[in-house]
């Protein structure tokens, strides 16, 4: 019905694409750019599996239209290890077995990245608040909290 040309920078790379007005950002990333690290979880804005950074801020990409990201800088989980080498946070998740079923991991990593950018030495309480938007069906999140603590050098 209405197509729009949008230009976005994703993980430092420029893309220009035609998108329908109704396309959600998460589908644009996955289907149009083939960046399938960003997951569709609940698709209702609750689970945070689709979290990406939009101009440096953590957002849920299932609650944004792709066309709204026109001109924005995006970071997805693929951008955390551009050369295929895990970054400090990812290594900490690996070392501390920081996963539940694993489906939430990309979103957890982006929320943790955002948290540490805002607050480099968070307390446990602050970490738990920071990943509040990524709580899915599992429980505990103990190892994820440990991994983020370790990544912050504490």
């Amino acid at each position, binding site marked *: *019905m*209405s197509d729009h040309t949008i230009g976005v920078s994703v993980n430092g790379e420029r893309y220009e694409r035609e998108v329908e*007005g109704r396309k*959600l950002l998460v589908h644009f990333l996955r289907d149009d750019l083939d960046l399938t690290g960003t997951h569709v979880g609940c*698709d209702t804005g609750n689970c945070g599996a689709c979290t990406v950074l939009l101009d440096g*801020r953590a*957002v849920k990409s299932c*609650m944004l*239209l792709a066309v709204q990201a026109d001109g924005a800088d995006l970071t997805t989980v693929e951008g955390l290890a551009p050369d295929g080498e895990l970054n400090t946070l990812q290594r900490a998740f690996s070392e501390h077995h920081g996963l539940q079923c694993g489906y939430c991991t990309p979103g957890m990593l982006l929320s943790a990245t955002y*948290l540490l950018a805002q607050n480099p030495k968070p307390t446990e309480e602050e970490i738990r608040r920071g990943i509040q938007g990524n709580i899915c069906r599992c429980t505990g999140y103990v190892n994820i909290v440990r991994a983020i603590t370790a990544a912050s050098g504490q």
Partner: protein
Amino acid sequence: MLLSELEYARPESVEDAVKLLSREDARALAGGQSLVNVMKTRVASPELVVDLNRIDGLRGIRAVDGALEIGAMTTYSAIVESAEVAAARPILAEVARTIADVQVRNRGTIGGNVCSNDPTNHFPPLAAALGAELTIAGSDGERTVGAEEFFEGVYLTAVKPGELLTSVRIPAKGGARDGWASVTLGKEGTGIVNVAATVSNGTARIAIGCVAATPVVVTASADETAVADAVRAAELDPPGDVHASAEYRRHLAEVLAARAVGSAT
């Protein structure tokens, strides 16, 4: 989820937005943290989505003689992080900080919160307790309404088709003390009952959310018994659901009103 087909417009001025919104099938898109989800379920299927995110004049917080002028498109995160809010009316930041989660706070806006007027939203009772004034732009210019006139019903406000909320004015605190108390589904989840209160010269102005279509405003002398009595006298008729019976919500309204007044600072 694939949304219904839609037309997307991104005006850069309030005038252009108002023109677009005069179309009957148009909806304003603020932070999108509610609207996009209801579009997924087809509860709303606007043919024209008017994205307000590029109207610079709708963002920002200004302190004017102790009062705050908050642009409708100001995000919860901006309110949480604002030095002006911290100095003038910190309750706004304290409450905004408990809305949903950080991703939602990075997109969701004060204007979207009051205009959607879901009875469980945080800002309607807070705006009502603090005596907020809301400015609405239309094709004939601007008008300003008080919070009590603004909230008209469930999902209904004084903002009519072809109109747009532009700013929320929060009066100067003066010597008042502000408080908030709520019981939620899970920590900082959806409100079962929300109460905002402001205490000035020994009188508490209390606004109760989640118990009626619009915030219920009660005034009482600022002591616990008087507050609980005044809430009881309001004869609330709240909804009951799987989370809380009507009776329990009535009980919470009394307890939380006393707590909001008692903890006001």
